[in-house]
Structures are given as C-alpha cells and as structure tokens.
C-alpha cells in the first residue's frame, strides 16, 4: 500500500519528461489525461484501503482518508479538464498540409509538460504530512501555471500572468511565514517538527501566542491562493486569460488544494487554541467572498470572468462551511469540493469552445446558442444548473447541509446572509446564461456582419464524453450514501474534528 504513495509523483515526472521531448506526439497530446487517470486510480485505491494509514519516508508522504479523497478529486477534475480540452482528432480523410510538422510543436510540448508538473505538485501537496513540503508543492503550482496563464501571449495574458505570479507568490510567502512560526513553536516546545500528525496530536506543549500568530498568517496566505476575499484580485484575471482547460484545472484543482491546506491548518488551531480564531477568520473571508462575487456577477459582461467570480463565490461557501465545522458541515464541504470541481471544469471547457466558436467572451455578443449550437448550449445550461445548486446536483445537498449545520451551530445570522447572497448570484448567473442561450438563430445576419471567429482560441469542438461523465457524476453523487457518504465521513473524521 505504501508504494502506491509514490505512484502519482513518479507518473507525473515520467509523463511530464516524456511529453517535453520529441519522442511521441501522442504522449505529448495525452499526457494530462494520463497523469489525471493515474491520480484518480491511486486516490480510489487508497480510499478503498482499510487499516493503518500508509506512510512513507517519515513525515514525507502520508495518505489518510482525506488525502486519498483529495487525490481522487484532483484526478477526477483533472481528467475532466484535460480530456475535454483535447483538440478534436483530425478526420482521416482530411488532407494534412504539406508543411505541417508531424511532431508536437515546442509550445505544445511545454504546455503538456507544465500540466503534468502541475498535477504532480498537486498530488504531492495532498499526500504529504509535512507542512513545509505542502507549502513547497503549492508554490510549485504557481510556477507551473505562470506560463500556462500567459500561454496565449499578448499584453492581456501577460498582465494576468504578472499579477498572478506576484500576488500568488506574496500571498503564499505569508503562509510560509506562518509555517516557519509553527515550526518555531514546536521547536520551543521541545520537539522540532513540521509533521501535521504530530502537531495535531496535542502531545507538544505549543505556545498559544505563537500558534495564534502562525495560524493566522498561514490561513491568510493559503486563502490568497484559494481566491478568498479580500485577496482574490488575481483570480478573475488569471482564470479569464488562461486557456480553457487550464482555467478549469486552476478553478477545480488549485483552489481546492489551497482550501485543503486551510483545513489542515484549521485542525491544528482547533487542537491548540479551540475553534474561535479560525472560525472568525473563515467566516469573514467566506461572507466577504460571497459579497464580492455577488456584486460583480450581477454586472459582469464577460462570460469567462463570470465563471471566475462564481469560483470565488463557491470558495466563499466552502469557507463558511469550514467555519461552521463539525462532521456534517465538513462532509458537506468535501462534497461541495467534488461537485464544484467537476461542474466548473466542464463549464470552463464549454466557455473555451464558445469563445472559439463566437470569437468573443462578451456575454451580450453571444445570442441564440440553443438554436445555432445545441452541442454548446446544452452542456452550458446543464453545467450552470449544477453550479447554481439546483437539485439533483451535489451542490444542492452540500449547500443545504452547510446552511442547516450552521443554523444549528448558532450562526443563524451568517447563514441568512449566505442564503441571501447566493440568491443574488443565482439571479445574475441565470440572467447571463439565458441571454446567451435563448433567442433566435440570426444565422443570415451573422453571416453578413457578425464577427468572424478569431484564430488562436483553440477548437470549438471536442470530446463530449468527459462533460457528460462529469455532469452525471455531479448529478448522482448526492444520492449515493454508500460508499460516497461513508467516504466523506471518514475523510472529515481524519481532521480529528468529528
């Protein structure tokens, strides 16, 4: 079982290295899908495993049920984004241009290697027990995604990449300061360690003042990476400028893993200080994120930015859920991570195809998709329904569970505010989606004067299977109490709070 822990990083390394060379154009093309599939398989195998928690290399790698679940989420969301993001296979009878190179181009190889590196770093981040290694892995994803955000080139993509790297690195540097102070606290208590299991065990007499400062800084730092207000300003730029599959990966995987880091830090604070400090921080950040997202979604004119703000909204819901705490709310938070990751990755891919088909991301310029392009409109509507938290999709159950748990925990006013802000978001998203999807086709008018699709935005077609799979999983997962409910409860219990 322990050897399984080595599989995800090694697979990412090997596939990434293979994709970077000229060896095989097919490997370069499929590298992201391959690594994601390995992550999903490993995560599922680790989830099925009962018995002692597998560990490797002291505190280096460790997979409790929470880590295994996160690994499976990273794999599943990664699979959705990379598989659906594949350019359509060239038809066999279509002639190949004479000067077209058979091998993958340099940009394609770099893109493939960076995606593999990103997924590998995420796998290490969720399966390590050492908070220092967790930090290094999360920061490594900033490095891997920097060029992915700027992949399309042009001043706007460069501006987004610059802001993303500077804000992301500075935010995560604050988390490093927090991690360093946690290490100092353990060292002053007589047992220098960064091992999460030892820090939550309660066997070290950690100094309260020091832990308070350390936890506050660590939560603040990882919250920047998770896109929580007020440190969210890099997110809409980066998500709207990156290529669609990368936006999906960042929204569904990167934010989730940064949030996972907050959950781990929260557990330490709960043991040493009690829940007060982190609950206050998370509640403020969560409600703040919901408010920012609600205000900006209502007057959003760009559909990719709208999806980015919807990510901020969902991170806000997650932060509120984590602030509530307790077994029900935490299991709901994990269900929410799955549902949001799958739905958002699908939607970003669809948004990328809409951009390729229409040549614009402006909501007002897209009309009558349902009549003209049902292959784009149907997944868009279904995905939006999932994202808005309508039944039967998972997000409905997770949001209801979080609100009810918060009500019972005596946070009624915060839950009332959450529901009100969620309704505002629903109104904004429904209006924008309806205006894009409904309406007559206007084909003849478009042919005469409409904007021609701009080149360089990828393809407007692609595999539909991953979208169907991801959205169906989101639809049924809320009903599957066994084994999913059992897995969520075990993962929440791994935080030592249930």
């Amino acid at each position, binding site marked *: 079982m322990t050897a399984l822990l080595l599989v995800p990083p090694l697979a990412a390394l090997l596939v990434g290295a293979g994709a970077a060379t000229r060896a095989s154009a097919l490997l370069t093309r499929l590298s992201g899908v391959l690594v994601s599939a390995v992550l999903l398989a490993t995560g599922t195998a680790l989830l099925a495993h009962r018995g002692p928690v597998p560990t490797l290399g002291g505190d280096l790698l460790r997979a409790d049920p929470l880590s295994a679940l996160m690994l499976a989420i990273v794999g599943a969301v990664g699979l959705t984004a990379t598989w659906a993001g594949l350019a359509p296979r060239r038809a066999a009878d279509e002639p190949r241009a004479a000067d077209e190179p058979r091998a993958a181009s340099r940009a394609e190889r770099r893109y493939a290697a960076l995606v593999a590196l990103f997924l590998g770093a995420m796998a290490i981040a969720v399966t390590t027990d050492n908070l220092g290694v967790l930090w290094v892995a999360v920061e490594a994803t900033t490095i891997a995604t920097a060029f992915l955000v700027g992949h399309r080139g042009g001043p706007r993509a460069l501006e987004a990449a610059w802001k993303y790297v500077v804000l992301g690195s500075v935010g995560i540097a604050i988390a490093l300061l927090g991690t360093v*102070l946690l290490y100092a606290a353990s060292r002053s208590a007589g047992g220098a360690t960064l091992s999460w299991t030892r820090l939550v065990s309660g066997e070290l007499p950690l100094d309260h003042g020091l832990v*308070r400062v350390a936890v506050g800084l660590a939560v603040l730092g990882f919250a920047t990476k998770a896109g929580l207000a007020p440190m969210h300003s890099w997110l809409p730029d980066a998500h709207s400028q990156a290529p669609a599959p990368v936006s999906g990966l960042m929204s569904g995987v990167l934010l989730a893993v940064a949030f996972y880091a907050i959950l781990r830090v929260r557990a330490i604070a709960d043991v040493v200080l009690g829940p007060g400090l982190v609950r206050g921080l998370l509640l403020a950040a969560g409600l703040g994120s919901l408010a920012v997202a609600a205000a900006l979604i209502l007057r959003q004119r760009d559909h990719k930015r709208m999806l980015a703000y919807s990510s901020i909204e969902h991170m806000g819901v997650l932060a509120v859920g984590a602030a509530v705490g307790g077994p029900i709310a935490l299991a709901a938070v994990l269900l929410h991570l799955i549902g949001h990751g799958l739905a958002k990755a699908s939607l970003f891919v669809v948004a990328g195809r809409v951009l390729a088909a229409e040549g614009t991301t402006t909501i007002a310029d897209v009309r009558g998709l349902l009549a003209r392009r049902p292959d784009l409109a149907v997944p868009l509507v279904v995905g939006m329904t999932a994202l808005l938290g309508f039944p039967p999709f998972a997000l409905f159950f997770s949001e209801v569970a979080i609100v009810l748990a918060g009500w019972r925990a005596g946070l009624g006013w915060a839950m009332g505010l959450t529901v009100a802000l969620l309704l505002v978001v629903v109104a904004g998203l429904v209006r924008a989606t309806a205006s894009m999807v409904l309406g007559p086709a206007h084909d003849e008018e478009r042919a005469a004067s409409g904007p021609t699709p701009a080149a360089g935005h990828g393809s407007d077609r692609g595999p539909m299977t991953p979208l169907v799979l991801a959205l169906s999983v989101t639809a049924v997962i809320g009903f599957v109490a066994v084994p999913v409910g059992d897995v969520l409860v075990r993962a929440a219990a791994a935080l030592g709070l249930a």
Partner: protein
Amino acid sequence: MSTPGSAATQLIALAAGALLVTSVLMVWRRELSAQVRLLTVQGVSLAVLAVTIGLSGPASARAELLVVAALVLALRAWLLPWVVGRRLRAGVEAGDAAREDGARLNPTASLVVVALLATVAYLVSRPISEAVAAGSGAAVSGPAAFAVPVGVCMVLIGFLLLVGRRRAMSQLIGFLVLDNGIATVAFLTAAGVPFAVELGVSSDVLLVVLILAVLSRRIHAQVGSTTLDSMTELRD
C-alpha cells in the same frame, strides 16, 4: 547559550542591524542598480546570521546549518541579485528606465512610513520573541530572540516596496526583500526550517524570480515599458 556580551550575540545583532539598514536604504534609494547591490549585502548578512546561529547552537545541527548558510550565500548573495541585475541591464539597454520614477510616495514620506512599520513590527513580534526566548529547545535564546522584529519589519518593508512602486523590477526587488525577511524570522526563531524544506523553498524562490524576469522581458517587448500602470486592461 548566548549571553548579552558574547561574540555570538554581538554578531547576530550586527547582522540583524545590517539587514534592517539595507532594507531601509532600499526604500530611500531610487536607483535600481543600487538596490541590487543592497540585495547582495542582505544575502551576505543572512549567511553570517546562519553561520553564527549554527556555530553557537548544538553540535548536532551544526553541519546542516553551515550547508544552509552556504546555500543562502550562493542563492541570496550571488544568484538572485545576478539574475535581477542582468535583467535590469538588458532592460536599460533596450530603453527602459534605470530609476524608479513613478513611486507613489516621495522618499521622506516613505521613510516616515518605514518608521511606523518598524513600530508595528515590534508590537506584533512581542508574542513571538517571548515564546521563543522562553522555550526550552530554541536555537537562539536570550537577547538574540529579540531581534525577531527585524525580520518582521523586513517583511513589511517588502510589502511597502510592492505596493508603492510601479516598475516591474522594483516589485521583483520588493518580493525578494519580503522573502529575505521570512528567512530572517526563520533563522532567529527556529534556526531555519528543515533542510529538505529549505531546499524546496530556495528553488521555488529562484524559479519565481526567473519567471518574473522572463515575464518582464516579454511585457517590455509587447508594451514598450515595464511601468505597471500601463497594465490596466483587465478590470471589471
């Protein structure tokens, strides 16, 4: 371990003082090449700090800290300033300004802000210093633990440089000051992080600086300047 008069304490005080003075000078100076030289001095001071803590600490951790000190010297006193300096010279040759000319604060006002930041740093580091000084397994006990505010102050000055300056290279330098500040806190409170983590952190910092250098070259090529005020296309 170390008493107020010992050579180790004095060396730590000297290195911490040098770190603080160089950070303040960075706020004052506008010449970008001067700031790069100050970064080198900071790197050397950090290495001195690491060596002193290593030599005055328990023998078991001595070898590891000396290796870390060598790493700090190579990275922060040589490699990072070299990367920044090279990008700076290339930028100047391509017609970019060599001075920070669009700062949001004039030198006098920024020095007043630095004084305020130093006060804040002393206030917020009180619980840290006290916990570290009282702890049994601390690397630095006694007076040296009370140099922690210097590191916190450097972090705050790094922030000031990041928000107060408009050139891409100035922001990069601000990020490095912030990072040096975190390293200072790490050495003074915990004799540095474990070696494997230190290695990861160092390579992450190096890669971030390389990426920012490449991005600033591309921005200069596309926009014609690296004043970040020209980057306002993305907003709601």
